[in-house]
């Protein structure tokens, strides 16, 4: 039995509001990726450092980030830290949760990329007189980032989709939050959610195509 009459106009009238929300979504995703990449590089270096403590720390981060639901990570950032008197705004909680998740996945990405680079590359650099760190920075890192670039765009798309979990911590300015707000007022659920889904789809698609374009320009031989 399906007797719902679609009223697309109501949803379309709210499109400008939803697009504003989409900008916030994109902003959070980009920020969380930028910070996530920096943390992931640090975690990767920790693992290579040879120090047991640092390596264990990096490994724990990766394990927790990859093996617990993103929803919990965001919820913990808000209500978990809240229990200890640390109060983050919904925006900050969402950003923290997603960044934590991103850093874990990206660190694994980078580790895989590193493994694909032959050790002889470092040796070649060393034989040219470069110190270890310089050889890593100038020879290994660029290759690593290159190999990890396309897998990282997957993570970017995942980050965009993860922002929708912010509604659980009171986020009401991103696309999911705005959509939920509109839905609560009129309950034109199917229309609003369908429209939001289309916007998410378009953003993800554009990001993917842009990443391919960048990869093509930057990494061709």
């Amino acid at each position, binding site marked *: 039995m*399906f007797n*719902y009459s679609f009223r697309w106009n109501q949803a379309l009238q709210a499109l400008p509001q939803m697009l504003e929300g989409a900008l916030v979504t994109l902003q959070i995703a980009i920020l969380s990726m930028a910070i996530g990449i920096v943390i992931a590089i640090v975690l990767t270096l920790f693992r290579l450092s040879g120090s047991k403590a640092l390596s264990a720390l990096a490994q724990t981060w990766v394990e927790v980030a990859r093996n617990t639901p993103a929803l919990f990570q965001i919820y913990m950032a808000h*209500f978990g830290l*809240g*229990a200890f008197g640390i109060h983050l705004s919904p925006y900050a909680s969402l950003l923290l949760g997603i960044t934590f998740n991103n850093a874990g996945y990206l660190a694994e990405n980078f580790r895989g990329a590193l493994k694909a680079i032959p050790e002889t590359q470092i040796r070649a650099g060393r034989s040219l007189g470069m110190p270890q760190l310089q050889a890593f920075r100038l020879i290994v890192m660029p290759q690593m980032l290159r190999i990890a670039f396309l897998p990282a765009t997957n993570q970017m798309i995942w980050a965009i989709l993860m922002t929708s979990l912010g509604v659980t911590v009171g986020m009401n300015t991103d696309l999911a939050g705005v959509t939920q*707000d509109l839905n*609560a007022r*009129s*309950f*034109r659920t199917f229309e609003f959610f369908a429209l939001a889904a289309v916007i998410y789809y378009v953003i993800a698609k554009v990001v993917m195509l842009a990443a391919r374009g960048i990869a093509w320009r930057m990494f061709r031989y």
Partner: protein
Amino acid sequence: MKTSTLAFTFLAASGLALPAAADALDDIISSGELRCAVVLDFPPMGSRDENNNPIGFDVDYCNDLAAALGVEAEIVETPFPERIPALMSGRVDVGVASTSDTLERAKTVGMSIPYFAFEMAVTARDGSGVTSFDTMKGKTVGATAGTYEAIALQEQVDAWGEGSFRPYQTQADVFLALAQGQIDATVSTSTVAQANVKSGNFEGISVVGMAPFDTDYVSLFAMREEYGLINYLNLFINQQVRTGRYAELYEKWVGGEVPDLTVGSVYR
């Protein structure tokens, strides 16, 4: 007989043989089951007892309705934002979920006459400086996403032009955020506010006054085009009041003076 006459006779006969399409009311009676959407984190209207069984005013109300229809009641736990989607997707027959009868919602679903009325109270965290509704200005406040008071409060925060509003998914999250200090105050129905403050689950919060929002009348709801069912619901609500069952349930779950379900000088 000509072929065309034969065909016509056949068509006419088959048309007559088709049963009239059953409506939702018939469907419920013949299925022997009434599925009600009830919110179960909204005491005293809906919650769970220590054995995890659904209890509360709305639960009893659904049971009464099922008894009137002569069918079994099934309580379908439904969070606030999912009440109307649950109806639309056919998971429930009726919403007995303290649903405010806003005109905006009535564009989507069919609302019965009011079956309960809420007044709105302000609950604040001790030390937040909120001592009344007006002192909420400029503070961080929150409420359960999609509720009548959330919509009214958000509009008020916009009108004040300072402070911020956060919608949470459940009433429990709102009070958790309040007790943790994530928000300074909330507006909820006075029944919920009292129940949460008394529960002892949340420390350092108290009811500091009433919010000047209109009385929140709540309705049962069904599919917009199911006039038969909506008609039945209206009469059922009328009978609940007439027979004293409404007052009885009110005394059992809330206590105090029974709110009036009518507005003066106007029908419905």
